[in-house]
């Protein structure tokens, strides 16, 4: 199912004549062969929230060949297509979380499962979350059952530069990361401002201060700029007689060059307004873009600057106060970003929170309205779908219900902004991968097998 199997990966044997600083793939590969598509299905008669600004109070969605084929007030059922009456339900795009550590901080939280922070150095751009991802983490099942179809798995925030993220789909029965990579998704780079790198590294070589943090970023990107220049210079004259041997390859530097080239998207854990502005200036200095600030508890203070720089902010509805940089919180954060024309996202950073991103969006929407800001249902839905897809660079493939998008769809028991609503069915590439009312369609990971009365036994 949903084979997004690996293409042969580019690799450069150490003794091969290198042509360029051949990178680890900066995007997840496309499927090597056409997947066997699930049977087409027409979901009929639900409230359809498309996350494009259009809501059909009564609409139909046709899923075929892994894609959304048609969406509208009335879609004719092609011959032979199964029609499912979902009157009274609500259909949305699959939920997307820009910030998860599922798979790299798995449940149970054993010491053996702590694979999300390579704390051996404050700057580890060479590591990849994909290499730490455990596809048998039972948290994956819980996220899928809550309507999550795509999530970005990030290294933790112990390091200034924590390594590459990977965007995955909640595909059941995966044997390795290669079964779940979001096809064509760009890599992300996790960077972290503020307290965490200071706290983790302060006593073991630094950085110890916010001064040290910024110096660490600048040093790394300066090195990357020089690395890029060296390799480009060699590339330009490699066919000449005196070209000499290619410069040494450095995997971490390749990742940072990917950022400088705009191929790898920066996801920057950063809470305070002043630090976010500082990071925007640093990015300008070295000529790269930040795609999303994560946590961004003070984003509302600089909503105008975020809008102007076209940087998204992945925020919580209301987590706050656990540390000093998370003190100046307001539940209206996302709404104030939307009102200022910035791209707001509700993220989880939590295997519990990922199970109710729709509810978190509902709280943030209501808080906006209490502040006098008008937030449409569609906008609140975009916080957990279309805007998240943009932050991950996959917005042309998922995040809305439009013809041609992946058939990643949730059928909710009612209004997804109500506390009482459940994700009833989850479709991934048109395949039904979760059904609350059918115990046979509740995939479980190997971990849950044989555990006495494990969660997977019953919803």
């Amino acid at each position: 199912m949903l084979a997004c199997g690996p293409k042969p990966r580019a690799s450069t044997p150490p003794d091969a004549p290198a042509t360029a600083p051949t990178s680890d793939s900066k995007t997840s590969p496309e499927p090597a062969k056409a997947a066997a598509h699930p049977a087409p299905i027409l979901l009929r008669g639900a409230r359809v929230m498309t996350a494009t600004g259009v809501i059909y109070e009564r609409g139909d969605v046709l899923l075929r060949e892994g894609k959304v084929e048609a969406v509208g007030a009335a879609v004719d059922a092609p011959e032979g297509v199964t029609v499912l009456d979902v009157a009274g339900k609500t259909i949305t795009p699959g939920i997307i979380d820009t910030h998860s550590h599922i798979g790299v901080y798995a449940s149970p939280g054993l010491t053996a499962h702590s694979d999300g922070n390579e704390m051996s150095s404050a700057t580890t751009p060479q590591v990849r979350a994909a290499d730490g991802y455990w596809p048998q983490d039972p948290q994956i099942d819980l996220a899928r059952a809550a309507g999550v179809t795509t999530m970005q798995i990030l290294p933790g925030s112990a390091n200034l530069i924590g390594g590459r993220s990977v965007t995955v789909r909640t595909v059941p029965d995966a044997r390795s990361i290669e079964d779940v990579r979001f096809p064509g998704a760009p890599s992300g780079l996790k960077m972290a401002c503020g307290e965490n790198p200071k706290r983790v590294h302060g006593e073991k070589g630094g950085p110890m201060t916010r001064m040290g943090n910024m110096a660490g970023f600048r040093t790394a990107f300066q090195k990357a700029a020089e690395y890029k220049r060296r390799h480009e210079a060699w590339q330009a004259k490699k066919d000449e007689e005196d070209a000499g041997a290619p410069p040494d390859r450095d995997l971490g530097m390749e990742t940072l060059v990917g950022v400088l080239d705009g191929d790898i998207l920066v996801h920057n854990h950063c809470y305070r307004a002043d630090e976010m502005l500082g990071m925007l200036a640093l990015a300008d200095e070295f000529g790269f873009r930040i795609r999303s600030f994560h946590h961004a508890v003070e984003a509302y203070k600089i909503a105008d600057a975020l809008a102007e720089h076209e940087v998204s902010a992945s925020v919580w509805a209301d987590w706050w106060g656990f540390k000093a940089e998370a003190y100046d919180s307001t539940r209206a954060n996302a709404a104030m970003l939307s009102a200022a024309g910035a791209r707001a996202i509700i993220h989880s950073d939590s295997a519990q929170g990922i199970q109710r991103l729709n509810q978190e969006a509902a709280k943030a929407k209501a808080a906006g309205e209490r502040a006098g800001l008008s937030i449409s249902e569609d906008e609140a839905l975009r916080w957990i779908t279309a805007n998240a897809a943009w932050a991950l660079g996959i917005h042309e493939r998922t995040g809305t219900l439009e013809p041609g998008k992946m058939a990643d769809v949730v059928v909710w028991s009612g209004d997804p902004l109500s506390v009482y609503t459940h994700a009833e069915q989850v479709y991934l590439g048109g395949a039904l991968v979760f059904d609350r009312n059918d115990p046979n369609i509740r995939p479980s990971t190997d971990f849950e097998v044989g555990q006495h009365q494990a969660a997977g036994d019953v919803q």
Partner: protein
Amino acid sequence: MRLIYAMLFALGVLWAPAVHAATLSFSQAKDAPRVAIVGGTVHDGTGAVLQDAVVEMQGARIVRVGPGAPSPGAKVIDATGKIVTPGLIAASTTLGLVEIGMEGSTRDTAREGGDAIRSGYDASVAVNASSTLLAVQAIDGVTTAASTPQGGLLSGQVAWIDLLPGHHHDIVAKPRVAVAGGLGQRVSGSRAATLARLAEVLDDARFYRSRKAAFDRRASRDLSAHRLDLEALGPVLGREVPLVLEAHRASDLLAAAALAKDLRVTIVGGTQAWQVADVLAEAKVPVIVHPTANLPGGFDRIGARLDNAAKLHEAGVTVGIAVLGEAHNVRNVTQQAGIAVAEGLPHEVALTAVTHTIASAYGMEADYGSLAVGKVANVVLWPADPFELATVPDAVYIRGASIPLVSRQTELRDRYLKRHGAR
């Protein structure tokens, strides 16, 4: 039901000026003006629902609940179309003891230093009425908290507080309402060692309690804990206050249930409680759960599930609901209750689970947790279902006074709305 309330009403009028427990930190002003909330749908916190009832407050107490017209001279608050509930109570929280979680200088949540027996640690004297967290929760309908020390096997004594910022002298309604602790691997890396230590300390406390004079003469056997820690266990042994134990694994829950033969026990957490629900029901041990805690986060939490509360209720266990481990957001207890309802807990039971059940689990039901004559006037007016995500209160009364619906968070919001010209 209406008849019963009519009787209560009659009695209320007679009793009202006299009824109040003398044990709380604040007194009742006898000639305070009356405030009557009229026209609302009153959910009293114990499961009863009264349409178009009057809830009348005088000073810090409720003086009347039932049908009829407001008393002459009472200030009338029109709650037509609204829902009236008791103030919600946050169980097992460090609210009042912490400002910023990771900053030790703002945290008085634990007596640190290694000894697992800290029952003498009295949280009430550390409660900070200046904490900005208080208003953040209060404006969302949480009026009261069981401010609870953490860590060790016996963490300390719980303070019962009303969320009244600035009330330095009387924010603590009642100190030392319970002793809090936890089972699991709390001592010597072993749950068996933990239970053995608990048994030893309780035995020593019993010994100390009956031979204090001998102890003072140094004519006692050696005791395994400090005098003050043993002293604090006296009310637990006398069943005057409950022992509130966090426990998750079935074996620990059974151990807690066994303690309930001699002591008043409340369980907090209870991840695997649904697996031993019959025993917990039989032992009449209330279980306060965090409904969304469904991760198999450790091998003592295998089987964690969203419908724990519903299954416990079905089995006859008294279920409380709380936001555990996050003082800053105990306001989300409404969302937690809503999720428990979505997973099968009856709505009225869920409301009881965040009001009356919590009060009784801490032995405070004589004064808190329901809308009834003589109870502390912690009352919330909601425009709609309190558990829905868009609902926040229209008014919150704490000890009979309407609180301003502002917090540091709303003020920061408004400051920046103004700066950005949105207001």
